[in-house]
């Protein structure tokens, strides 16, 4: 059974290329365009991901705020969440770590590298 990944990014280009790339590697993928959209879709529960990958800088609700909200919900308390962002400042990383992010990936990252990290986070994927 294929693993499910939920992508959150405000760039439609990023979402479409990442989604295609991950689907070609056998993952099931759903997407959201910002933190508010993500929270609403994840709470609705139609798509139950094994992993969430989120950008940081997004309108309405940023990635760090999204993690904070998700970690307060029992269903997402222990779910792996990777941050995939252009942001590389140590302070932001520490904040992400403190809020419960599983890892931090600085863009740009090649598709094979990203898939390798996903497989590391999701054994058996």
């Amino acid at each position: 059974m294929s693993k499910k990944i939920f992508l959150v990014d405000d760039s439609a280009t990023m979402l479409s290329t990442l989604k295609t790339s991950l689907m070609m590697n056998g993952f099931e993928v759903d997407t959201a365009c910002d933190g508010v959209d993500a929270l609403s879709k994840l709470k609705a529960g139609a798509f139950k991901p094994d992993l969430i990958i989120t950008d940081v800088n997004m309108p309405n609700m940023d990635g760090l705020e999204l993690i904070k909200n998700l970690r307060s919900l029992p269903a997402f308390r222990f779910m792996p969440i990777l941050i995939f962002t252009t942001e590389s400042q140590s302070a932001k990383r520490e904040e992400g770590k403190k809020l419960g992010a599983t890892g931090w990936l600085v863009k740009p990252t090649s598709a094979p590298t990203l898939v390798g990290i996903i497989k590391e986070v999701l054994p058996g994927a």
Partner: protein
Amino acid sequence: MEIQKKLHFGALPSYTISLGVGIVLSVLAFKLAQNLPENSILPYATGAIVLVGLAVYHILFTRSINRHIEEAIKTQQIWVKSRQLNDENYRRLQVFLGSIPELNKLLEAHLAFINESTEKASLAIISKLFLMEEWVAQILKELDGQKLQIPSAILSQESFIEMRHAIIDILSHTQFQDISRQQIEVVTKGLALCAQYSDEVAHILDSNNPEPLTTPNLQSESMKALRESYTMEAQRIVHFNATGDDSALDVAGRPAIELF
């Protein structure tokens, strides 16, 4: 001066890489053209042309932004140093203040253009890829039905899948577009802060009111954070690799990928 250097440096690798991606895609399109029917290569060639066009546009646009920023910083430095405005500096301040709303509108318009164009090009390529996969499967089925075999090096499901992976990998370089987009957002935020600061300074000077400034100035932590955000990690690494100067690198020297 240090700020100006950083801004120049920040712009260079980004558009160089954009141009590089465009060129790589063009080369790939020509390579594919050697093995595939002419009409099937059209989406890749179109995508390549669009990306090269975007890269050239990006070069011109980034230079234009940098010129505006340098002018703004120069103006700000003049009145921070002199602590008083003569007629010429006051005129420059007024011109600068007046240009910010227009400049921000221009930035937003260009931002929308970059987003839409890149999105359109990458979505077109992806959708054509899926259509092409169906087309390859159908051709192979028909050839199989007619007991005809063509060398797998020329056309096979496997070779197509391999090629598709290569194209998607190249498309993933549109992540650089995301970096450019966020840089423009940072510039817009910085300009808004400059305008707020300058407005307050002008107001105090006009009214001879000795009240202290409440807006953070250009040496503040807020502006420092904006400057750091403008130059992304990828560009700092390129700079470090080219010059050996590690002053712009993350002080903690953290890797690009880190699992907590």
